[in-house]
């Protein structure tokens, strides 16, 4: 599939993560300066130049589990601390939201507008820090360079790659259920009304031409939907009206972020089957993570007491309950690792994939040939 998908996937999921964390910080009444510090730290880590360089290299997408590790690390690049249950929920919300946005894009190219919506909002969250704003603008530049000239066909391939990545994900999100954006079975509602994509005509017309190219007959037909013409095209400039609402912040203090765990379903069963089989890609995924996280410069907090726990749930009890009742098949535990032959590698990976602490111990200089896993653990 397309090898240019990762930057779009990462930035949009990252944007959703920031929306949710911002909402939780306000819901938990975290003091303004602390909240700002959290967001600033995460954004500056996300948009770090070295990290972006790794991200933008042409590469295939890795698994959802591998990607989750990156966000786990990203969240903990700030002074917050997330329990497994909260991190799971955070990742669930991020992935469902972006899946929805990709699915709903009127044109494949609109996924770039969704990305710009996220970037615009991120800039709003860190507007007091010009240095970080600059980093985000540079990434904007890079996105325009890489994606600005792509054809509709190439965007179609990117869209298909993203949808394959999100295939069979049916976690239900409260906000989506309430807004009737998701059905109770987790499937998204696809409206058959509203504006058509830019460049598409409203369906319902058959035009017939003779061999000279003259229009000789026009017939209308009932197409079944209720569409109207597109008002205007969204802007792909650094600043501009994106027109599209997908990718803007749908959370606010009054709209809580709840998920419902779908019961075991056929789709989930098939997904579990695939992950139980021994995964020969674990090594490749580790290399990918090492490269990506190696570019991530994480700041150590000067005062260890400054760290605080963020809860994605309304109460501690709910968080505990969620951890206990999360269905097996939706666990982000690396089930496949137990099946790999290399015991040492699987132990290291299990440690990294699970909760981990950022140690303050200085890292001994390690050559590239050293155990990549050890390197990652000390970042």
């Amino acid at each position, binding site marked *: *599939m397309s090898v240019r998908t990762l930057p779009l996937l990462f930035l949009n999921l990252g944007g959703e993560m920031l929306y949710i964390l911002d909402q939780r910080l306000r819901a938990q009444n975290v003091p303004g300066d602390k909240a700002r510090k959290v967001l600033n730290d995460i954004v500056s880590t996300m948009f770090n130049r070295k990290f972006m360089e790794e991200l933008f290299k042409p590469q295939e997408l890795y698994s959802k589990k591998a990607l989750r590790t990156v966000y786990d690390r990203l969240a903990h690049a700030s002074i917050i601390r997330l329990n497994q249950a909260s991190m799971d929920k955070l990742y669930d919300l991020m992935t469902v939201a972006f899946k929805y946005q990709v699915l709903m894009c009127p044109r494949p190219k609109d996924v770039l507008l969704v990305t710009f919506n996220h970037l615009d909002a991120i800039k709003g969250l860190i507007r007091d820090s010009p240095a970080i704003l600059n980093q985000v603008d540079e990434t904007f530049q890079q996105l325009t360079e890489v994606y600005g000239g792509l054809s509709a066909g190439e965007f179609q391939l990117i869209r298909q790659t993203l949808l394959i990545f999100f295939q069979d994900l*049916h976690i239900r999100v409260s906000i989506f259920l309430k807004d009737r954006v998701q059905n109770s079975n987790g499937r998204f509602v696809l409206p058959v009304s509203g504006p058509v994509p830019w460049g598409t005509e409203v369906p319902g017309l058959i035009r017939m031409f003779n061999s000279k190219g003259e229009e000789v007959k026009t017939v209308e037909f009932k197409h079944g939907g209720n569409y109207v013409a597109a008002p205007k095209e969204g802007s792909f400039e650094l600043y501009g009206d994106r027109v599209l609402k997908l990718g803007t912040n749908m959370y606010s203090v009054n709209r809580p972020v709840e998920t419902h765990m779908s019961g075991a379903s056929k789709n989930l069963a*098939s997904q579990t089957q695939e992950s139980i089989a021994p995964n020969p890609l674990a090594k490749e995924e580790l290399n990918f993570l090492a490269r990506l996280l190696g570019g991530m410069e994480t700041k150590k907090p000067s005062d260890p007491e400054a760290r605080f726990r963020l809860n994605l749930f309304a109460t501690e009890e709910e968080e505990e309950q969620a951890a206990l009742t999360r269905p097996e098949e939706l666990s982000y535990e690396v089930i496949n690792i137990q099946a790999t032959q290399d015991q040492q590698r699987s132990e290291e990976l299990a440690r990294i994939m699970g909760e981990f602490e950022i140690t303050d111990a200085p890292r001994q200089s390690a050559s590239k040939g050293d155990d990549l896993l050890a390197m990652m653990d000390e970042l």
Partner: protein
Amino acid sequence: MVAADSEGSKDPGARMFRRERSIPLRGSAAALCNNLSVLQLPVRNLTHFGVVHGPSAQLLSFAPEGLPLAQRQLHAKEGAGVSPPLITQVHWCVLPFRVLLVLTSHRGIQMFESDGSIMVYWHALDSGDASPVQAVFARGIAASGHFICVGTWSGRVLVFDIPAKGPNIVLSEELAGHQTPITDIATDPAQGQDCVADMVTADDSGLLCVWRSGPEFKLLTRIPGFGVPCPSVQLWQGTVAAGYGNGQVRLYEASTGTLHVQINAHARAICALDLAPEVGKLLSAAEDTFVHIWKLSRSPESVSIEVEHCHGECVPDTQVCGARFCDPSGSSFAVTGYDLAEILRFSSM
């Protein structure tokens, strides 16, 4: 002139369709185009279905009254690479003396006996001149006489010469005509008769190439695109039917490339077209959740092509990714949708 909508009882082609029992799939359908292949075997009262899930494809045998009879999963042949190769398309090719199942992926082209039991041929893709940012894959499959034509990421179309039986399949020609990845290939079911043009290839830029098959294929016409991909194409009695990424269906005269009909058919990208050649019915399906059936005809006086709309079906909340007629008279069709682990069936009442 704008004629009134011709739907309703006075339109002889209009029918009502009802939902039949769905066929469950082991894995959901992937968000690809042309993601349903149907092999009708009326003599045995069987229908075969093929759907791509991702790294695997599923084949099913179905008898009308009963439950699915047989089920098989195929995987893309592994090769050098980082992740399990994804399948782009699965399609049955009906040749004069045999039927082969062709599977295209990001590694190459596999050909199987029609039930998928034995692989008879493997062709690895040559990614030699691909830049690091280009995806390498095969996509677009059609049978033309005793040839099977398969498209590739570079725009080249590979022509394989298929013997009446056995695995001695030979790559006989590589057709140049496209510069962007091939999306779909169609051949005229009534070839060998009056038709000169009997194959059309389509690509991501919307360009269509019309060919005459033979020991050497000859490029007859080029029909330029207009900035959107053409994911699906059909050929019927000298008429090219093309579905585009902006929801339009266009009909062209194959030999000259003249545009005869332009239908604003769908509100999102078209993902599949199919033909019921005996009755001149065309089926279009798109990501807007709709399937439409059209009746094509050639008016004797003007020698141009006419189209009328027969039926529109909404498949609620489903981003359709494949659709096919299930019988030669076009009175039943099947649909697959992204994330949907079943094949939906409709037949007319």
